[in-house]
């Protein structure tokens, strides 16, 4: 979320990616950095350590939504 805020402040389109277990924390952090509306994409938890095949599947499924968020076609 903090990286997302840094990119957004630099004028670059940004989407923060968080896993389900960190959704509340993400909202808190976004509020704390003064950018509560930073777009975010929620992935299943856990992601890390779940193997290349699963990570590729998660990425494939999440990518279209991330692009929509970056292009501003979805909130």
């Amino acid at each position, binding site marked *: 979320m903090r990286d997302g805020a840094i990119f957004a402040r630099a004028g670059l389109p940004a989407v923060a990616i968080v896993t389900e*277990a960190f959704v509340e924390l993400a909202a808190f952090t976004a509020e704390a950095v003064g950018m509560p509306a930073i777009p975010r994409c929620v992935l299943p*938890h*856990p992601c*890390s*350590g*779940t*193997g*290349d*095949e*699963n990570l590729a599947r998660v990425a494939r499924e999440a990518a279209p939504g991330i692009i929509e968020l970056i292009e501003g076609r979805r909130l």
Partner: protein
Amino acid sequence: MKLRATRHQAPDEASALELFHLREWTDGLPVIIPTEARVESMLAGVELEPDIIVGQIGPGEATVEKIAINAVMAGCRPEHFPVVLAAVRAVGDPEFDIDNMQSTTHGMGPVIIVNGPAREVCGPIASGWGALGPGHRANASIGRALRLCLMNIGGARPGHGDMAALGQPGKFTCCLAEDEEGSPFPPLHTSFGYEAEQSAVTLVGVDAPHSVMMQTNDDDPEAHERILRVVAGAIAIPGANNTQIGKGPVIVALNPVHAGVLASAGLGRDDVLDELTRRAVTPSATMRGWATKRRIPDGGGDLPALRGPEDIVLIVAGGSGMYSAVFSGGLAGSTHPVHAPVEFDFSCELPGLPPV
């Protein structure tokens, strides 16, 4: 209900609190003033006479009443009280060697592990995210109640009854539940002969938890080996009593991911204990550069940090991810893990209590 404790007078709660600090009846933090009504409410949930002796802590007899007073002071609700009683009962087991623990210069303290339905009925006692950290009332209050008993009944005052050279924050409070639902292994208390549907506390005298990081990967066929190596390495770190002396109980708290990786590799609870015991060793040549309090054989070989798998208390707890923990043992191996049943019957409404 006849209470035997000496009554003290104070004009108001703030003055009473200052009296408690002045008399050294607290752990340094404010306490709830144990008025007669509050102590009676604490006692209402257990069918025990106040003067029954639950255990001996050093010079002090831990009666139900004295334990209830300290539970009030710690901030417990009556639902928590059966766990506090069980913890004090366990501490009184000679196998625990509480007198040695109270007076050692090591910074060890008791950790309370709760299994069975008491985790919810007497809590909720947290087992997941931050279970050992701040923010969980039952965990904080139950562990603190035991500490206040050790101080106020057992006389553990820093520099007097408690000779810990430095101490550690876990001595304020240290209580958690096992994440039985997230564990692939049978619950800890079944290792001691309890049925899974019974409730029990396990008490272990140990140092502060030492974080163990291991990012696993489902593609890694060696993941379970890495976890075992790193956890065993954390048991046998240079400064631990286990390494310097070669014995003492340790707690290994695996997060559900690490536990799951080990189970997926076909390892059961006993297998994990055996593997960790086998790996928690230090080569003689290395040990010569580290230790002065253990005999190092001339012939070389590895020196174990544990007497055997019985020195490990294995639980599953914490949020899922890459962090587990090891709590090193204390004393010269004279303390052993102990346990006691948690007995409760909250079929009646507890009188005089504000609603949750």
